[in-house]
């Protein structure tokens, strides 16, 4: 990558105000409110059908919201057609123009903007260097590998110096190794250009690795917004806990300010919301459980080992605690076997109350 590509001059933030979109009787996006700061990379994360792609397409202008507003900076964009929005999108399918060469593909946005020929040439050259495609300018998309096509799509998007950069699952057609590499490159490039970015994915690892903030969506609504670590450590709903990595979710009742009674024992929980009475759920991560000697500390779960899975850097245990299935990750020094009855400790600051 070369360092010659300067940051974009006219970048702006993005705001969504109570955006709603229906498909027939189905509500795809149900009142989304979101502020994205200038230069920030925000990921929309959720299962298919959660409304993330619909939201992205509304920002690009491919569809209009039924109600609510979309603002770039201070400007309301609802009625602005896609070709006047100055966004640039990297598609899941790459959507390269098959009848054009690599250089022509990258030139397309500049040509549509009637940029002078000399400047076009300079900027195309920069973009090609940025994504390391030198030597492939005269190829057609059909002659490129998936990874190379992905780079062309990226170059074609950034060369237009968009106000907002949009990604629609850009890595899902790459193999696992390449995905990690390109993920880092996209993040590095986005930071260097300082361009406001909305990124859609269903891959939680990708979201955690790439984002300034993650927006977890479910059934057209925002479940939680936060920095990757905040979301991972302090999910507020069982959906977020479960979607971002593995989680043990156990139903119970509040038994005090920081105490929850469950069928598998009483748990003191970390600081956070003050508990009222009534039914609640608690959640913790498999890697927060560790094997302890019987009779130790508080927050102890007694469980029978149902499965031992060697995963390389750790061992995954499938546990049965009084009918409740749990998962634990322990280090590779673990010597237990299936059928063993063991005690596990869960630190109270790792136990979260979730909705």
């Amino acid at each position, binding site marked *: 990558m070369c360092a010659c590509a300067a940051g974009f001059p006219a970048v702006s933030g993005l705001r969504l105000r109570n955006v709603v979109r229906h498909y027939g009787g189905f509500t795809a996006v149900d009142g989304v409110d979101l502020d994205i700061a200038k230069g920030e990379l925000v990921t929309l994360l959720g299962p298919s059908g959660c409304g993330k792609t619909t939201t992205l397409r509304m920002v*690009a*202008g*491919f569809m209009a919201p039924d109600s609510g507003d979309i603002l770039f900076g201070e400007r309301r964009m609802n009625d602005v*057609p*896609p*070709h*006047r*929005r*100055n*966004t*640039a*999108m990297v*598609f*899941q*399918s790459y*959507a*390269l*123009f*098959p*009848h054009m060469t690599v250089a022509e593909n990258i030139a*397309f*946005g500049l040509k*549509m*903007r009637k940029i002078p020929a000399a400047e076009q040439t300079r900027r195309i050259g920069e973009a090609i260097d940025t994504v390391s495609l030198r030597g492939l300018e005269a190829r*057609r998309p*059909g*002659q490129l590998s998936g990874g190379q096509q992905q780079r062309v799509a990226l170059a*074609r998007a950034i060369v*237009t110096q968009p106000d907002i950069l*949009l990604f629609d699952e850009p890595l899902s057609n790459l193999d696992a190794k390449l995905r990690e590499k390109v993920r880092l490159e996209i993040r590095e490039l986005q930071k260097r250009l300082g361009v406001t970015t909305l990124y859609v994915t269903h891959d939680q690892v990708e979201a955690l690795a790439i984002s300034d903030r993650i927006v977890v969506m479910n059934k057209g609504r925002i479940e939680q917004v936060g920095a990757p670590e905040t979301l991972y450590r302090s999910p507020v709903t069982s959906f977020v806990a479960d979607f971002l990595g593995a989680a043990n979710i156990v139903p119970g009742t509040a038994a005090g300010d920081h105490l929850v009674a469950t069928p598998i024992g009483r748990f003191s929980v970390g600081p956070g919301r003050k508990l009222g009475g009534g039914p609640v759920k608690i959640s913790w991560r498999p890697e927060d459980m560790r094997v302890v000697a019987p009779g130790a500390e508080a927050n102890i779960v007694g469980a029978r080992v149902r499965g031992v899975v060697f995963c390389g850097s750790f061992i995954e245990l499938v546990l049965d605690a009084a009918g409740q299935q749990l998962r634990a990750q322990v280090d590779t020094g673990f010597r237990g076997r299936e059928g063993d009855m063991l005690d596990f400790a869960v630190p109270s600051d790792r136990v979260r109350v979730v909705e």
Partner: protein
Amino acid sequence: MRTDRLTLVLLILPGAGFIFLFLAAAIAMTVLQSVGLYSLVGESKLTFEHWLSLADRTFIDSFLFSLKVGVGSAFGTLIFSYPLALFLRRRRFGTQLIGSIIKIPLFVPALVAAFLILNVLAFHGILNSALLGLGIIDRPLRMLNDKFGWNVLIIQIWKNLPFQLLILSATLESIQTDVEDAARNLGASPWRVIRHVILPLSAPGILIAVVLVFILTFGDYAITKVAGPVYPSSLSVLMYTEAFTLQQWGAAACIGVVITFASLLFVAIYARAARAVAEIGR
């Protein structure tokens, strides 16, 4: 291995055999008859007199007329079918109904189609009556059997529109919507999306649509016979006249050879062009 080959031959035989017997053999016979061999009437001897007899005004005028109808119908239909295919591509209110209605001419035989349109365009037909009734004209317009062949073109366009529409719709269908979205996203207005993306990507389909309609209309008999000018006639009409009215079987065979090989020539041109276009897409 042997039974495999036998099965293969048995599978191919009915279709290929039929085509060979009734097409290749028939074409070969016609070619031979055009040079005086295997004559149906009179003695058989190698001669080019039939071909030489073609070198008159009537044949040349008929050839040019057929060429005009072929090219005119192919591109005339395209002018209507392509915008329509673009319109019907996006499902919206009424497109399904329009799409169904438009296919009707496809199921109407050419002769019937000619008669249907005849009623509209005739000297005392629906169109003239309406124009007279509205006071737009004071004498009925002659729209049938005109020397240029406008009415033939109109009927051909009406008849071939759904056919081209089917080909073009399938072609447009094969263009990824993502590609179109990408163009819009990169700053292309709807018109420029069509010009820079949709049109070049549908070029192979346009080529197929144009060539097929050319071949269908170049050899037309029924529509020219009913609605065409008295002179010149199309090549097919001329061929019929030569054979059954003038009993000139040799000359008729020559015309048959001309029609067949002109069509084959266009297929060859089409095949070359299609390959070139396919290269571009790769």
